[in-house]
């Protein structure tokens, strides 16, 4: 889905893989004119993620993360490539990049110099560890990032190894911080500052920022949260993933009211006034006994029944769906959340829609992700005024 709220914004997108491309996708979905600049061999993320059988050079994730962008190729090691790049920056509001720190400077494209040359431009840099510090140039992957940032230690069984979260969740979190930062730089510029800035977003810090349970709670209580198995933690609540007859269900029982309703759901109203469970503090002290009772009840019930009967009582209780079930979930269907894209290479795929509904706009269908260099002619010819023969020459020289 594509809105047009930001259609006066010009973004030069020098990102690859996930954190950068998702940041620019958020802007593109809001209507910003995003031109994705790739090396002539394509960015590393083109082959990323699940691929349809027989299609090696275009991953499904690339096709999702780069919707609504136009794509050009440029060899920034060629002087002519850098000149054309400067042409794209002229009049642009944002340059967004997620190379290793120092990469742009080594190409003669240091962000501060770019801003000096194009004062209205802001540069958002998203990197593993930030633009400075002793480990600025260090490497990360998702497993190592989650572990270091504190997400992993409290997850899993007490007597087993900690369990990492799935996928690349923190890359997306960093993308969000990057997209927000881009809007912040524009707001600052337009509300009085008058010029752009070079913004530094560290993926490690974005990971830590979303872990306030550990870092702050620990200082207050002095207690390190250890792995609590199926429970989120042992506390004055029951936040737990429970086995039921046909899968798993997630329960979030925190308030007195939710607990009373849970007792009602189980047909055990007397538990609400039981001296072991009648206050939040007692529910923490007797958390194991409480869990045992609830577990025994859930194991004999079906997910759908628990969901319906729990929610009827305003208990946050949900079935735990597979990603396949999320794709088929009635609620997402009714809201037309997933969007079907007819990708020119991969064919039809269903992808998540934009999470934001701006009531001032009607959204329109997304444009598929660009093929490598798909908009070279449109951008270099249209925006920069190059002739067909000049474009042909650049192509032969390997500059585009």
């Amino acid at each position: 889905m594509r809105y047009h709220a930001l259609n006066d914004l010009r973004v030069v997108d020098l990102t690859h893989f996930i954190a950068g491309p998702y940041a620019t996708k958020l802007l593109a979905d809001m209507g910003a004119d995003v031109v994705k600049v790739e090396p002539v061999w394509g960015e590393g993320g083109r082959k990323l993620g699940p691929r349809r059988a027989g299609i090696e050079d275009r991953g499904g994730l690339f096709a999702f993360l780069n919707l609504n962008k136009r794509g050009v190729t440029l060899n920034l090691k060629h002087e002519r490539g850098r000149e054309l790049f400067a042409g794209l920056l002229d009049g642009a509001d944002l340059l967004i990049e997620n190379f290793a720190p120092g990469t742009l400077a080594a190409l003669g494209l240091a962000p501060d110099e770019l801003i000096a040359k194009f004062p209205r431009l802001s540069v958002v840099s998203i990197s593993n560890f930030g633009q400075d510090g002793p480990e600025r140039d260090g490497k990360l992957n998702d497993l190592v990032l989650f572990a270091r940032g504190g997400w992993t230690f409290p997850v899993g069984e007490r007597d087993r190894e900690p369990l990492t979260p799935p996928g690349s969740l923190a890359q997306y979190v960093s993308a969000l911080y990057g997209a927000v930062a881009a809007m912040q730089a524009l707001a600052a510029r337009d509300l009085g500052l008058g010029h752009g800035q070079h913004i530094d977003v560290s993926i490690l810090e974005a990971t830590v920022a979303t872990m306030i349970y550990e870092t702050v709670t620990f200082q207050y209580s002095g207690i390190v949260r250890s792995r609590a198995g199926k429970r989120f933690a042992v506390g004055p609540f029951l936040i737990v993933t429970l086995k039921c007859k046909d899968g798993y269900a997630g329960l979030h029982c925190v308030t007195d009211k939710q607990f009373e309703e849970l007792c009602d759901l189980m047909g055990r109203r007397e538990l609400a006034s039981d001296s072991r469970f009648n206050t939040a503090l007692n529910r923490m002290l007797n958390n194991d006994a409480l869990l045992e009772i609830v577990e025994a009840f859930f194991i004999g019930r079906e997910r759908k029944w628990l969901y319906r009967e729990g929610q009827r009582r305003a208990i946050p209780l949900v079935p735990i769906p597979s990603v396949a079930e999320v794709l088929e979930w009635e609620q997402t269907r009714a809201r037309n959340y997933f969007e079907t894209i007819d990708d020119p290479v991969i064919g039809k795929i269903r992808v998540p829609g934009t999470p934001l509904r701006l009531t001032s706009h009607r959204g329109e269908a997304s444009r598929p992700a660009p093929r490598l260099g798909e908009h070279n002619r449109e951008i270099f010819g249209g925006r920069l005024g190059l002739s067909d023969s000049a474009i042909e020459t650049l192509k032969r020289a390997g500059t585009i």
Partner: protein
Amino acid sequence: MNTIFDGKVRVLDISMGWAGPLVGQMFAEMGADVVKVEDTHHFDWWRGSLSMAPPETQPIERAAVFNTANRGKRGVTLDLASARGIEILKRLIEVSDILVENFSPGVMERLGLGYDAVRAINSRLIMISMPSFGSDGPECNARGYGNTVEAMAGVTGLTGYHDGNGQRYTLSNALGDPVGGLHGVFALMVALRERERTGRGQLIELAQVESLIPFVADAMLDYQFTERVPAARGNRHREHAPHGIYRCAGDDNWIALACESDDQWRRLASALGIERLADDARFTSESARKANEDALDAELSRAFSSISADDCVALLRDAGVLVAPVNPAAAVIADPQIQSREYFVAIDRAVVGTHLYPGAVARLPDTPLRADAPAPLLGEHNRQVFAETLGMSDDDIAELERTGVIGSSPRQHRVA
């Protein structure tokens, strides 16, 4: 110019928990005037329960999570079940730019504050509603919080050990909440920019679950391409091995490591002095290591069990292997990279004293974000906001206190 907004944007935050309050907190970082409204009976549930400690110790002022997510706001109380409370809230709406709410669908309408009513009061106001599953659709009334949103987005279904019995685990950080909040901030920044052009506010709807689903798009595409539901992989990787978490010497000390090439694997083996494993036919290539991963993990676990986590990390980092300690909270705060960038900020907050809080993530050199102001006590700024911002007299405010419309201590029962 010190901050982006320099107090020129006012945010009215009537949300609770984390997702909504994070929106207000991030606007406070930008220098907006953020007024958080609570009810003395139904105060923000993230303050915790009154039963946790004796009243004189002020238990609801001791919630680390509340005190983090509400930094930099002015706090007022209003009884939203009373006509007078709603009337005052409407006056605040009149002088605000943004209204943040994350009640269940229908609650704002019942309070007489649906978007049409809000727009009639202030057409420039931008209102954001953050229901868990959306404001329409057959399941829009279902209750969800961070963890339940995470489940319905498909995240929990992917979180389990590779050799588990199917047990699924919730993430440690209620990710659905901050992700909803971050999307909310982004949406509001877009709408504010648009308002500069059009002069009009609008309603933004953000279904929290819809903001988290994109994070597992790869698993959804995998399912579409293979027609197989992706299995929980635990600490393992689709292609690479070793890729896991291993116990080191000491109590509950672990490291996470990954080798993404044969070369990294050989360097790991030589750093640990276990070259024999690198030459073992079961482990020479990535596909062989993947096929014999249980045996590989058992060998590595033996090798690490007598070395401290710090030593392991130092050895392997020097060898160019992807590695990190599995950090508990204190170690995250002490992380040398985090420390060198002064990411955490010290804040002295009434009742609890001085602690370190996570700072603002984005570094904007010319308009720095400010994450160093404390969260308000319940009703702390009643007098300031109602007198200075709404121009009420001392008598008006005393009357509101007497009738229980406002207050600064939690109440179990309403004033009759």
